[in-house]
């Protein structure tokens, strides 16, 4: 038991287990599961995340894809992956021509400073991606 855990136990509150973190390899595997043998090209996708956050609990994320969003040419889905949380998956958004615009915003958790990757699948079967690096600083005075 680390010294920090002993101190925390005294305060009697929630703590985090030393969990196996997803690695870059696991993120790569998760992406491979999605795209199969297809090529992943950078471009068309724009992943917006702050470059530095004071708290990794609630990080605003916006992802958009250049696309006319017509029946013939649209974004089918956008998948978000991360590098260092316990799991590589963050979210998957399913769009289609009824969306009008390929743009989704949400708020995510980042356990540590890491890279986040967004992969878009288009109606023609192609995959495009963008990534963003986020530095997660920790609050000086946590409740625990």
């Amino acid at each position, binding site marked *: 038991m680390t010294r920090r855990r002993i101190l925390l136990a005294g305060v009697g509150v929630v703590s985090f287990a030393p969990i196996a973190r997803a690695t870059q390899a696991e993120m790569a595997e998760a992406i491979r599961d999605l795209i199969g043998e297809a090529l992943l090209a950078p471009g068309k996708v724009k992943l917006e995340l702050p470059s530095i956050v*004071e*708290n990794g*609990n*609630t990080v*605003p994320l916006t992802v958009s894809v250049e696309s006319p969003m017509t029946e013939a040419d649209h974004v089918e889905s956008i998948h978000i992956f991360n590098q260092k949380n316990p799991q590589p998956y963050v979210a998957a958004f399913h769009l289609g021509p009824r969306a009008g615009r390929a743009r989704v915003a949400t708020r995510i958790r980042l356990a540590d400073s890491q890279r986040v990757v967004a992969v878009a699948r288009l109606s023609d079967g192609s995959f495009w991606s963008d990534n963003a690096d986020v530095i997660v*600083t*920790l609050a000086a*005075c946590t409740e625990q």
Partner: protein
Amino acid sequence: MRVLLAAGLAVAAAVTAATAEIDPEARRSGYDFASPEIRAMQDDDTANPGMLWVLEGETLWARKAGAAVRSCQDCHGDAEASMRGIAARYPALDAVLARPLDLEQRINRCRTENQRAEPLAWESEDLLALTAFVARQSRGLPIAVVAGPELRPFLDLGKELFRQREGQLNLSCSQCHDDNWGKRLAGSVIPQGHPTGYPIYRLEWQSLGSLQRRLRSCMTGVRAEPFDYGAPQGVALELYLMERARGMPMDTPAVLP
């Protein structure tokens, strides 16, 4: 030589011990220290997570409760009118109890005395919701706590507590929030500690929480035993903090890291 050294040390100690109040012109709220992303979260009422509690509070306001089968609305009518400016004046003196009550205590006093209902627990969803709803009606209005002669002793106690070193880290509130605001402590910028946006949606909590929770959390941070919820020292400190922030606009529900 030794006398000179002792005198020098005494002067040094006196200088470090004396903490300066922030110049009223130099006061900045937590919002001013927050990142653009956090500010954007707060500014948009349709995306501010704190608004979930405000909306719940609106529902509770109209709900009948207690043996008296009365809702807040039955006595106070439309909150937008009757509660306007109220939170900006709290903590306020309760003439009967002859001591200040903060907003949460005031709400509970109404519940027990007028609705004849059980008081709501500290940090319970319902109390947070009602407090947030009432405080929201003061948004944009300047903090205007009235510290008349009856409140003076409590204000003085609050000020003393603010300056008192405490905890294993032996730090006073003042040392960080008066003397070193704007500088960084670990990854965070130290704010001035003005309670303009309470109850706040704190990212650390992933939930709405009261000023008392935040104060207790700070005390734990310096490894001091935190006051119990509703303890007179806690309310005195709240009173001092609100007085220190007089004139600053309320921005409940604030979003802070």
